[in-house]
């Protein structure tokens, strides 16, 4: 009796264990099922290479949005990665113990601030600053990059700290024994040893920036156009989906799912890079 119960539990657990895999498959299937037929009927090349988006006229081209997503994400990396990595190096290698003990949890808590709040700060504080001092409409590539950069900062910093902390102390001691200063031991030995973990931290941050939606809608200005300057407003792939989903029907709705397919592929490529970097680090 007991024996068969045990087997039933094991069988149930085996089924449950596939829940995440099944969810992933379901998500992939449904987004592709809605989006891919449109790519075939409308022409994938036209969809990807045209930057004219005019649902009323039946024109669906997402090039400007792909460019916008990449530019804004790159901008976020330029802002967030150096600050995040520098902060991690300082806190893990140079800061007095008590400073690290106070700031590390504080930064992890700040990672939980909802993204809409970051977007709101962008609208209320940063966009007026940009408008008044640099010109343009304020809601722009620059504004979105800075806001997303700050948003991914805690993620990049706390994962980088973990990567640095996992470098054995003997590495540092060896460098110091050879007469290196602490800074030399950090940038010649420790940073090299922690490199793959830090790369993974940055790529995870990038994934968050590419996928961010509501904060970007609030600060990027949402004009469908390839940006010429960093003060131009742009619309990202994510923003395009969220802004138009509410009122889209027919081919327009399918085009939004096709936008989702493009976003999905970009994210999976980034995930692949991050997982690869982490695996190399684990070895």
């Amino acid at each position, binding site marked *: 009796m*007991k024996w068969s*119960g045990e087997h039933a*539990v*094991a069988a*149930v*657990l*085996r089924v*449950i*264990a596939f*829940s*995440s*895999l099944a*969810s*992933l498959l*379901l*998500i992939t299937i*449904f*987004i592709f099922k809605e989006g891919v037929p449109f790519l075939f009927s409308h022409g994938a090349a036209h969809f990807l290479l045209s930057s004219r988006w005019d649902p009323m006229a039946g024109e669906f081209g997402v090039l400007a949005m792909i460019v916008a997503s990449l530019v804004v994400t790159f901008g976020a990396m330029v802002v967030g990665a150096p*600050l995040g990595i*520098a*902060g991690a*190096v*300082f806190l893990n290698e*140079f*800061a007095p113990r008590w400073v690290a003990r106070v700031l590390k*949890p504080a930064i*992890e*808590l700040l990672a*939980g*601030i*909802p*993204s*809409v*709040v970051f*977007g*709101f*700060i962008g609208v209320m*504080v940063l966009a007026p600053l940009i408008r008044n001092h640099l010109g343009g409409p304020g809601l722009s590539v620059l504004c979105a990059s800075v806001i997303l950069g*700050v948003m991914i900062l805690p993620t990049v*910093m706390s994962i980088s700290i973990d990567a640095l902390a996992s470098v054995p102390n003997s590495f540092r001691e060896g460098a110091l024994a050879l007469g290196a*200063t602490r800074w*030399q031991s950090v940038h010649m030995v420790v940073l090299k040893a922690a490199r793959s973990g830090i790369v993974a931290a940055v790529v*995870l941050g990038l*994934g968050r920036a*590419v*996928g961010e*939606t*509501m904060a970007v809608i*609030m600060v990027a200005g949402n004009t469908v156009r390839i940006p010429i300057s960093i003060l131009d407003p742009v619309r990202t792939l*994510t923003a395009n*989906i*969220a802004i138009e*989903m509410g009122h889209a029907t027919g081919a327009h709705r399918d085009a939004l*799912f096709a936008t*989702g397919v493009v*976003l*999905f592929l970009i*994210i*999976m490529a980034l*995930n692949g890079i991050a997982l690869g970097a982490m695996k190399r680090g684990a070895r």
Partner: protein
Amino acid sequence: MRVRRQLEQAVAVAALGGATLLAVVVLIFILVFVLSKGLRIVTLDFLFQAPRDMGRAGGIFPALVGSIILPLAAVCIALPAGVGTAVYLAEYTAEGRLTRLIRTGTDCLAGIPSILFGLFGFIFFVTVMGMGWSLLAGALTLAIMVLPTIIRTSEEAIRSVPRSYREVSYSLGATRWETVWKVVLPSALPGIVTGVMLSVGRCVGETAAVIFTAGVALRIPMSAFDSVRTLAVHFYILAREGISMENAYGTAAVLVLAVLLVNTVSYGLMHRFIARRER
């Protein structure tokens, strides 16, 4: 030579310290800005009154209720699936191709952005399953979104239970499931709760996945098929549509405090858990 190296170190440390200071100051500024502008508006009436005129006046009570019910429902759905997966991975099977596949799937799921969860939830739960914009559709979507977090933290917690606990249990004649249920899971509970709290925090702050699945109705839901609006969605709508900046600040303050509270609890739990493990 020696002086130059010392100088180089001093410059580098100063630059790193400066960057750290800048990062911390910016993050603290955001917190202080929202709380200082928002907390003036937050009164008991603001918290416990129904909104009037689309949120232009009155309070945020339905959104507050939504922000409690929806994450709890999502976690209740995700918890059995997540802990079940973790138990299977840690206790019932050896590392192999299957576990690698499950782990890779979980990692990929964790990387999917919330707008795609929203898109999926909208097409699958809201449309195909016919749930409409509802508490249930929102909770199921969020449950999938937090599943990887719960699986990872639970597995970590289960693996950190000392081997001797299991050996004692087996030596007393307990079966595998009895050991898991009566010995391993109770010992792993603080770690599992940490994962739950992290998940609740993520759901409370989520907007994109909620707005397309749970909808935006500004009422207290009476059934699982009623639409529900969370604080984050309420705040987004107030700020985005310029309905009331005053109330947007107030809502933002409540939202930020709620998320910080949830995260502080989970952080504290995690550290107590780690401390116990190392003892």
